[in-house]
Each structure stands twice: as structure tokens, then as C-alpha cells.
């Protein structure tokens, strides 16, 4: 695990900004040339052929929205600078309207084997309201195109808590579960103050936390009936189709990260690149991580290992914990026994995990676990 590395590349360009988004993105496609020049400089700066790359993930933004020549050049640069010969998964995020035949062909020839679509809802009224450029039909067409390029590992993202009805959301889950997608992600809407949606809704989330929890519970049931197993709080997959890249995050894996706002974990140090594209472009490549680094010591790594591992359905392997940190899980976290007694942790063979009905309060359980870890 520790000798494998993944790569995350952030492509911040979008054709339009979604109204709920407060993420680092940019609709000025004229910046592409400068951005990719900088990106390639950064990739070269960190080039390392000695570390075999396990997975690659192109996130955004909208990777499918940029020029094909940049995408071809990006993959070329990655292959020049890193060892991608044994890579097990390459994912690219796409939006339905921009996943053209040309883009899909480009992904295909560059080894992309997993597509992640930002669908968000199958309700066209909702999609329009949140500023998406596609409708549900566009998504179906994009699916057809993807399948024509032999993509058989496809994810669709849905958002819980959009300004639509409870049944609209359930309808989306049911509809997508019946499509030939292999993976689904369900994320709860975060209403950022800076987003246009926040102003539009006067700062009031369309659904309370309790209602969102109900929607989540129902979705979990539906997906389970359609053979989508939850493997992480927000992620559901058909057998063998879990996202290796995401799993790698939860397993405390190491990953390079390139591009504006990208977060990586290399040499026991977590780092973040400058948030805005302009800062990213203006910062010399050797200073990109300055002031945004955190060295992860032994204890902190144990904390993280559990924080991330408990998000997984499988939980944390007790034997792996001992092997990695030289101390038993129950000794390291003094409140763990108490949490188990109260039913907030369960032990399943070698693994400790969060019981099914407590998944949505994992943060409280973690903060309880951490409470005594440093005292």
C-alpha cells in the first residue's frame, strides 16, 4: 500500500458555474493555455519514475469541457513523468453535455477506463434551477456515447437536498439505479454562503438534517435492492466496481496532486495548492505548497487512518492497525470500548466499523473517539 501512489489532477474549467458550487472553478476557457502550461511545469517538477502509479483521477471543474489537445498533452506529460504502466484505474469526471464523441475518444485512447458523470438529478426543472447545462435526456445520450466507446465502468453523482421535492429525489435514485451505471455517489448539498444558490434560497436549506437523513436512508434501501452496495458513506457500487482511487484515499494512501486547489499526500505531508487559478498561476512551482502543508506524524496518521477507515462499510482492520502503528486500536483510542458498549462501534471479525444505522453521524462518533486520543 505504502509503495503505491495515485495521482489527482484538477481541471478547474467549466462552461457554466452551477449555482450551488463554491469550488475552485473557472468559466474563462481562454485561460486554458496558461493553466495547462503551469500544470505541465508542476507535473515535471515532481516527476518520479520510481513510484508505480496505482490510479489516476481527473477531477474538476469539468475535465470533459477542455480542449482535446490539452487532454492529450496532459496524458502524454503524465506518462513521461510517471510510471503509468501498471495503473489499475483512470477516472475522468464528465458532464453530459460536454462528453462528446471526440472527448470520449480522447479519454479512451489515453487509457481512461472509468467515467464519472455529474448528473445531480433526473428532474429537468431541478437541473435548470441549479444552473446545470444538461437535461436528463442529454445524460442518456452521453451514456449511449460512452457505451459506444466501450466504457463499462460509469458513475453518476446525485445530490441529496436540492431545491426539489423529497419524491423528486427518490425518483432520481430509482431511475438511475435501473440504468446501466456501475457506481453511484450521493452527496448532501452543502449550502455555501458564497454560492448563488445560497442567496436564491435566502440561506435556508431546502431540507432539514433530519429530512436529509430520511432521504439518505431511503436511497440506501433502494440502491441495495438494485445491487448497489454501500462501500463508503456516500458511495455505492455494483460488485467489483468500487472506485479504487477513492478507496485509496480512505485507506490512507499516498497521492500526488496537481493543479489549482488540488490536495495531495506525499512524504508524510499533506499539502494543498493555491485555491484560486490566479494564485496558482502566479506562484512559482517550487512554492506551490508553501504555508499549506501539514506533516503527519505517527499518532496523527493513526487518527487519520481511523477517521478515513470508519467511513468505509468494511471499517478498519484491527490487525492492520496494529501492524501499522504498533499499538492496539482499543488502547490507542481510550473511548473506543465505551463507544462499542453503547453500540456506536461494532466488531466484525478483524474489523471495527460503524453500525449501518449510525453511518450518517460518523463525525460525532469520530470526535468522541478523538476526544481522548491526545490526552
Amino acid at each position, binding site marked *: 500500500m505504502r509503495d503505491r501512489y495515485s495521482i*489527482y489532477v*484538477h481541471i478547474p474549467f467549466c462552461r457554466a458555474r452551477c449555482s450551488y458550487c463554491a*469550488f475552485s472553478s473557472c468559466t474563462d476557457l481562454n485561460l486554458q493555455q496558461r493553466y495547462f502550461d503551469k500544470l505541465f511545469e508542476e507535473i515535471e517538477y515532481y516527476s518520479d519514475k520510481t513510484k508505480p502509479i496505482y490510479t489516476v*483521477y481527473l*477531477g474538476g471543474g469539468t475535465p470533459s469541457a477542455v480542449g482535446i489537445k490539452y487532454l492529450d498533452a496532459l496524458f502524454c506529460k503524465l506518462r513521461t513523468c510517471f510510471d503509468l504502466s501498471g495503473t489499475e484505474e483512470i477516472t475522468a469526471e464528465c458532464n453530459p453535455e460536454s462528453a462528446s464523441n471526440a472527448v470520449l475518444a480522447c479519454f479512451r485512447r489515453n487509457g481512461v477506463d472509468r467515467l464519472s458523470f455529474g448528473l445531480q438529478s433526473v428532474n429537468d426543472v431541478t437541473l435548470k434551477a441549479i444552473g446545470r447545462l444538461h437535461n436528463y435526456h442529454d445524460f442518456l445520450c452521453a451514456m449511449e456515447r460512452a457505451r459506444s466507446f466501450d466504457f463499462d465502468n460509469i458513475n453518476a453523482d446525485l445530490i441529496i437536498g436540492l431545491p426539489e421535492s423529497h419524491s423528486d429525489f427518490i425518483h432520481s435514485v430509482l431511475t438511475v439505479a435501473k440504468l446501466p451505471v456501475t457506481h453511484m*455517489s450521493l*452527496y*448532501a*448539498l*452543502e449550502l455555501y454562503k458564497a454560492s448563488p444558490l445560497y442567496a436564491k434560497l435566502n440561506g435556508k436549506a431546502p431540507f432539514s*438534517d*433530519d429530512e*436529509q*437523513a430520511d432521504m*439518505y436512508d431511503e436511497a440506501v434501501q433502494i440502491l441495495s435492492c438494485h445491487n448497489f452496495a454501500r462501500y463508503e*458513506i*456516500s458511495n455505492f457500487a455494483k460488485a467489483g466496481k468500487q472506485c479504487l482511487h477513492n478507496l485509496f*484515499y480512505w485507506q490512507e494512501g499516498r*497521492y500526488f*496532486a496537481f493543479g489549482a*486547489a*488540488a*490536495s*495531495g*499526500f506525499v512524504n508524510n505531508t*499533506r499539502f*494543498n495548492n493555491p485555491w484560486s487559478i490566479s494564485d496558482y498561476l502566479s506562484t512559482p512551482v517550487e512554492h506551490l505548497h508553501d504555508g499549506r502543508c*501539514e506533516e503527519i506524524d505517527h499518532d496523527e496518521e493513526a487518527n*487519520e487512518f481511523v*477517521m*478515513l477507515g470508519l467511513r468505509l462499510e468494511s471499517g478498519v482492520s484491527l490487525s492492520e492497525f496494529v501492524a501499522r502503528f504498533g499499538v492496539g486500536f482499543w488502547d490507542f483510542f481510550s473511548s473506543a470500548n465505551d463507544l462499542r458498549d*453503547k453500540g*456506536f462501534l461494532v466488531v466484525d471479525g478483524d474489523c471495527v466499523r460503524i453500525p449501518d444505522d*449510525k*453511518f*450518517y*453521524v*460518523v*463525525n*460525532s*462518533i*469520530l*470526535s*468522541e473517539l*478523538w*476526544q481522548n486520543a491526545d490526552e
Partner: protein
Amino acid sequence: MSQQSIRNFCIIAHIDHGKSTLADRLMEYTGQVAKRDLEAQMLDSMDIERERGITIKLTPVRMHYTMDGVEYTLNLIDTPGHVDFNYEVSRSLAACEGALLVVDASQGVEAQTLANCYLALENNLEIIPVINKIDLPSADIEGAKKEIEDAIGLDASEAPLVSAKEGINIKDVLDAVIKLVPPPKGEEKEPLKALIFDCQYDNYKGVIIFARIMDGAVRVGTQIKMFQTPGKTFDVTEVGIFAPAMQPVDCLRAGDVGYICASIKTVSDTKVGDTVTDAKRPCAQPLHGYKEVKPMVFCGIFPADGSKYNDLKEALEKLKLNDASLTYEPDTSVALGFGFRCGFLGLLHMEIIQERLEREFDLDLVTTAPSVVYKVFTTQGEVLLIDNPTKLPSPTLIEHMEEPIVKAEIFSPPEYVGDVMGLCQDKRGTFLDMTYLDTRRVKLTYDLPLNEIIYNFFDTLKSRTRGYASMDYELTGFTPGKLVRMDMLLNGEVCDALSIIVNEERAYARGRQMAEKLKDAIPRQMFEIPIQAAIGNKIIARETVKALRKDVLAKCYGGDITRKKKLLEKQKEGKKRMRQVGSVSVPSEAFMSILKIDD
């Protein structure tokens, strides 16, 4: 200087009627203080007093003024203006021969003014009405005069008409003081007899006694003693006058107002109202009227951050140096850890101390519900004084209990009389009397249990009368009551810091209100939390904080683990700031929320 040329007086005024401004003008007019210094002096006084509109207590001031070719010494002694400090007021008054009654020409006579005015009359002071703020367009000089005559029975026809703010007719006030306030009548040859009307603590000089010399004289080297602290003698190291800064003099004589330092280390050795005399040649009798000031209201004060216990202790020690009426002793609570049980003269005193601890010492506090002292008669025949609900013996050991009763005088415009009576009825009051002071003012007199007044009574009174009513009260005694201890249970466990002693009939309503408040103040947690109010084993109210169902944050954008950790750290820090009651995390605000129960 002959006593004939000394005048000792004070100023009685309602909040905002211009007492401090008038004092400033008098000092300015007599050339005691330059205008520039005045402001500095004002700024020195306590912010809290100023914000709350309590009369600012100034140090006494000595002024010189010449009338008809004779030079006079005028000593202005200030009085605190609030009911909590009634006793101190009476002692300040006892140090004077006259008082200026300042009445706002646009507002008329107010309740607190009246109460202090009656005190002054009891002390046989010559009262000079002064009508202030005559420059205001809304000034009703004749109305104010009539009120003074009707409500107090003083002749106001000769009252100086002034505007302290504009400096109009200040000379009239000074002339009236000299003409009307009688000179002191002490005997310098008699043994020393001096009244302590205030004291301060100074790090270098020790306790500084503010005294009015009634008989005899005191100088450096005089060995003094106090009547209330027998067996202790002190050698005087400095005597002086307030010019207005402290200025040492050789000797203070009968009729003088000044200060005495005698290397006294503890404020409790010098009690306001006590008599200072010469240890070698004592006077036969102390001045009459000394009362031991006893705290009437108690509460637990705990540091919000348990590690700040020692800071709180030091802060209380420092406050105690200048405030002998504050009492405290160590207290522990299962919920709140180590802290102090503190005693206060009244609610305002309590609030002032709490605010001073927070502002001047930068402490974050958690305070428990205020309590009064109960007399508990046990089946063993003992009488216990209990001011802390957690110290109440088991009901089986209690024969009966008594609670303190106050006589409250509430002044209100006639249109709110119904509301005021309703409130007093709700608070278990017994109606005694109702008097129309004039067409705009009614005085209602009630016996009220003190433990009803300490919860929000003032606020409710003010809100029901649109701020017009005011009140005054004095403790009259104890009366048997059906009193019980009510506990609050969180997830089945008693939270000691939330227990209160309450009248049995009122317990149900109070229990329900407290449970509701706590429900709103306690955040949802991983499990359902029942909140119950109980008397003994009997549950009388219940609310539930539902279990938390969602706290997971959305997408982990591009593997940004650091952000997730920060959110968790924040959650963890938030929890650390909360108190653990069994398995329940209770924020400090929850303890405070029950103090604000609306009726």
C-alpha cells in the same frame, strides 16, 4: 478651622437626573478641578455602573467656597443609588448634615429617589430640593415642585432652578448649602468617634478608611480601634482629605471628612457603619445604627474552563479587597467542577460582581441559578441555614422550612396597576397597601418571597409596565413555606448545578419551563436525551432532545482530507467546551438559559 465654616452634604438623585453632572459643576465652580481633569475622573469610574445607570460612586470631595467674605469648606459625600446598597446609603447619609435632592424637571420624582429621600429624613438631614434640567424644552418646573411637595412633603418654593449641563445657577446651589445645611456639632475635646462610611484597598497603604469625624481628633500615631472588630488595634500612618485627590494633613478634627490609613491588611476589619475610636481613650458608645451586612442572594460561580479555577480565585480575592459585602467559599459540582459559592447583597450586586469578573479579569463564567437563604428545621430539632440546593438535607429529615420575605414597594403609573398586581399575585405576593401618590403615580406594597424576586422579577415588572415601574424592597423576616428541592435529570442523571429550591406549587410550572429551556440549549447528540424535572423520585416534567441523525459533510473534493480533519477538530473543540453530565454534553449556555425564564 472652626466647625461653623464646614458643611457636609450629599446628593440624592435618580439615575440620569444629573447627579454626577451637578457634582462636576460644583467642583468646577469652586475651582477644585479643571474641566479637563473632570472628564478623566469620570472615566475612572466603573464602566458597569455607568452602563447600568447606577449612581456612580465618587470618592468624597472637599471644596472651598467664599460667601459674604467667609471661607467655607464643603464636603460632598456620594451615595450609591441602588436598593441593594441601601445600608451603605444610610451610612453615607449619617456622615452628612444635609442633602441635595436633585429632581429632573422633565421627569419628576422617581421611586429610588423617594426611598433614599426617606432615609435622609430618618437621619435628620436637611434636604434641599434642586430642580435640574430646566433648559430642556420638556421641563415642567411647577410640576416638579408640586411633586416634591406632594410626594415628600418638602417646601420646594425656594428650590434652586439649575441646569447642571449648561452650568446655569450653580452658585444658587452652593449658597443654599451654606445657608440651609447646619454646620457639624461635634466636640473636639471628646474622645475620638468617627463613622466609617466607605473604604478602599490600596496595595501600598492597605485599607483606606473613609471617615466622618464626629467627635475628637485623629492624627498620625493615634492608636485606633473599631467597635466591631474588638481586640485589634492599629497605628495611624496617614490621615488626609480629598482635594479631590488624597492629600495628607496633620490632623482630622470633629466635623471633618477625610481618610485614615493604619496599615490595615484586611477589608473585613473595617466595616462600613462601624465606629473608629482612640484605643487609649475610647468613647463610651459607638455611633448607633451599625448593622452587619449579610448576603441575601447566593449563586455558584464556576470557570467555564475548568483550568481557570485559580484565576477565578485570585479575581474574587481582589474584588473582596474593595467589597467587604461579597462573600465566597469553595464549592464543587459534579457538572461544573471546582468553583465558588458566592453571596451578594442583592441581584444587582450579583450581576455587578459577575460582570466585573468577566470584564476586568477576562474570565468566562458559568453561574448557577441564584438562591436565597432558607431556614431548615430538622426533625432533630436543629435549625440550618441553607443557601445551596445541593446541601438541603433529605426530605425525611426536614420538619419544616422557612423562606425569606421582603416588603416590596412598587411605584407605577395607574394604568399598569392591574399588570403589577397580576405579577405580584403570580409571584405568591401578599397585598398590603395601595396609595395614590398623585394622579400619575401609585405605590403598591406587597409582601413577596425573596426567592420569587430573584428570578427575572425586575425584567418582567419592567416589561409589563413598559419600563415605567420601579421598586424597592427590604427584608422583613422568614415565613414557613412548602418548599421542595427540584432536580433536573439529563439522560436519567441528576445535574447538580441545575437543582433549585422552589415552592411546591410553583415547581410544576418552573420544571416545565426549565425543561423547555434546556431542550433548546442542549445540542442534539448521538443518542436521545430525556430531560426531566423531578421532586424526589417523582417526575413532574419531561422534554426530549432527539438523537442526531446527520452530521456527515458532503463531498471530499479531490481528497482534501485536511479540511475534513479541521471540521472534526472544530467539533471536538466545541465538545471540549461543554460540560459532561454523565454521557450528555451540556454547553455553558444551557446553565445560563434557565436563569432567563419568562413568565
